[in-house]
């Protein structure tokens, strides 16, 4: 046992060395430019975030973040290749340099941000654990769930958060943990459990699987903070800034009312000074990031602003029908807020 521990310690140390030794400023952007595409790590199938369509194209908000980075760097949103990673291998893939950016609904936590040789570039989606119940139950708040049988969709942190919440509120509950989302959805439908819990974004996907989705409702409580965002390797500030400001550019574009339809015309007219700076008509703000002058124009034209991407992948026109909620802009009731480009 002791020997095993020593071996493990050596392995981890070696892994940590390997992970930190090679990240240096500028290396990633140069490598990306040299190979001609951005290698992007996405999930292996998560509705609305990254999932292949019938033709095998990866669609979803996480995938679109990568497309936006490609649009900023190359002026071409198609210059991106996707690696589909499962939850266990995602960090290794980034640490070992297999992918340049990891955009895989990964929760931003202190241990991941500080302890793994990684750094989070922003928040694409403010998620949190929530509850899905049948309307017939007559429950309007999670506080009324005393004695309920709770189906838990096994996640990396879900079980812990749920048990914390119920204990903190002095509620009794019977947990049933499921590995796959299909099993847990079926159990809710068959009445084996009163309430289904998972990340809210996934609850909406679960709901659309049910035979009568309108009979079910997601309760207003969010019992944990799960800010999801793109991750890059620590130590390469240049690449970190590019990913971070790509995200900010998408948010700023939405705030300024720039959409994929009007952005080109707006860039040419250059009437609004704020937009002129953002779109590269005035000043050289792309240059600081080592990006082309029209980087924001390319992002918005080819991928869309944040609101467009959200609506296309998660919003009311999709089967998921997720409200903007926390993910609305700061001036619209949400907390998505981007520093200005100037």
């Amino acid at each position, binding site marked *: 046992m002791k020997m095993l521990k020593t071996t493990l310690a050596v392995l981890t140390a070696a892994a940590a060395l390997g992970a930190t030794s090679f990240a240096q400023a500028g290396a990633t952007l140069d490598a990306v430019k040299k190979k001609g595409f951005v290698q992007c790590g996405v999930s292996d199938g998560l509705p609305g975030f990254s999932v292949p*369509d*019938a033709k095998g194209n990866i669609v979803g908000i996480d995938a679109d973040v990568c497309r936006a980075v490609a649009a900023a760097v190359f002026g071409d949103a198609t210059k991106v290749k996707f690696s589909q990673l499962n939850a266990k291998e995602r960090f290794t893939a980034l640490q070992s340099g297999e992918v340049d950016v990891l955009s895989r609904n990964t929760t931003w936590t202190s241990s991941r941000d500080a302890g793994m040789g990684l750094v989070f570039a922003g928040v694409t989606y403010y998620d949190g654990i929530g509850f899905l119940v049948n309307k017939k139950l007559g429950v309007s708040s999670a506080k009324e769930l005393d004695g309920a049988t709770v189906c838990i969709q096994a996640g990396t942190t879900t079980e812990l958060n749920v048990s914390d919440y119920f204990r903190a509120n002095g509620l009794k509950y019977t947990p049933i943990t499921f590995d796959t989302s299909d099993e847990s959805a079926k159990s809710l439908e068959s009445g084996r459990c009163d309430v289904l819990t998972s990340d809210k974004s996934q609850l909406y996907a679960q709901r659309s699987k049910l035979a009568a989705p309108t009979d079910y409702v997601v309760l207003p409580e969010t019992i944990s903070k799960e800010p999801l965002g793109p991750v890059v390797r620590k130590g390469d500030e240049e690449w970190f800034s590019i990913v971070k400001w790509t995200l900010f550019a998408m948010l700023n574009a939405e705030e300024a009312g720039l959409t994929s339809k009007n952005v080109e015309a707006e860039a040419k007219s250059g009437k609004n000074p704020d937009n002129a700076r953002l779109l590269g008509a005035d000043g050289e703000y792309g240059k600081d990031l080592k990006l082309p002058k029209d980087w924001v124009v390319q992002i918005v034209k080819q991928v869309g602003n944040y609101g467009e991407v959200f609506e296309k992948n998660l919003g009311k026109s999709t089967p998921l029908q997720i409200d903007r909620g926390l993910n609305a802009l700061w001036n619209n009731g949400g907390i998505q807020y981007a520093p200005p480009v100037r």
Partner: protein
Amino acid sequence: MNAHVFKPDMPPPVKTVGVVAWMRANLFSSWVNTLLTFFAIYLVWLAVPPLLQWAFIDANWTGTTRADCTKEGACWVFVQQRFGQFMYGYYPSDLRWRVDLTVWLGVIGAAPLFIRRFPRKVAYGIGYLLVYPTVAYFLLHGGSFGLSQVPTSQWGGLMLTLVIATVGIAAALPLGILLALGRRSRMPVIKSVSVTFIEFWRGIPLITVLFMSSVMLPLFMPEGMSFDKLLRAMIFVILFESAYIAEVVRGGLQAIPKGQYEAASAMGLGYWRSMGLVILPQALKLVIPGIVNTFIALFKDTSLVIIIGLFDLLNSVRQATADPAWLGMATEGYVFAALVYWIFCFGMSRYSMHLERKLDTGHKR
């Protein structure tokens, strides 16, 4: 003298022939059996009609989107729409002919081996085993002879399952035989190496090996050097399964009477010739069921590559069920995957039975 004339045969008693008699003998021979029969019929009645109702009668067969699935039963439209992905993964659709061609070449190339009177079968077989994998590699992977390259990260679906399974079977069998011979060897080094190898690989679960190969291995490699995931998986599947094959073959070797070894030596045959001409043909014949059993297990074990993010048949299905446009189609997808796995495994099992019958010479008296 009159020749004795036999009376014509009487027909058997009515009670011992026909359907009724068969049922009496097999289904209702005692009250316990009668009870069990009725219970079994009840179970079948519970399971089969709803299944048929779901899978065929109420099923939706035509359409292009989820909205076309208006009837209660299964929505096979989902499988239809995703069929290409289930079969080929992300292999570019305009290049899929290369996969088809590889499969056809393999089938046509192997056909002569199954014709009994084909001349020089052994030489042909060895040639086939050398040439075909090379051709298949260049066809599937491309990158030369004017074929554009398709990296293994785009391989998927049933094609990937078959690639891993066939490579695994083709390489694990010879390696396993060598290991079995090594374990029975009188030379201490060879013996201890074989024993250590076999016991090591048999002692750890395949899933942990795959997991280590994808999570730990990349960290030890220089940056930018990535060791192909599929290759990693195949190497570990081969090593793992060869240990199992070795133990099966060893069972066969132990079943051969000592007299056969002695007879081979008495004929003046050396080690390799006595093994190749006398011992192994008999031993392998004995263990066909065991070997095929291992192969079937291997075929199903390929689905474990899900853990390292390879998109084999099962993982392709799982992923397709996460498409927002097709949420809730998991049952149809998994039923389809099960059917495909069953067809292949059942095929292997039938072929092994055929082989056993064909090779069952000499022990019949």
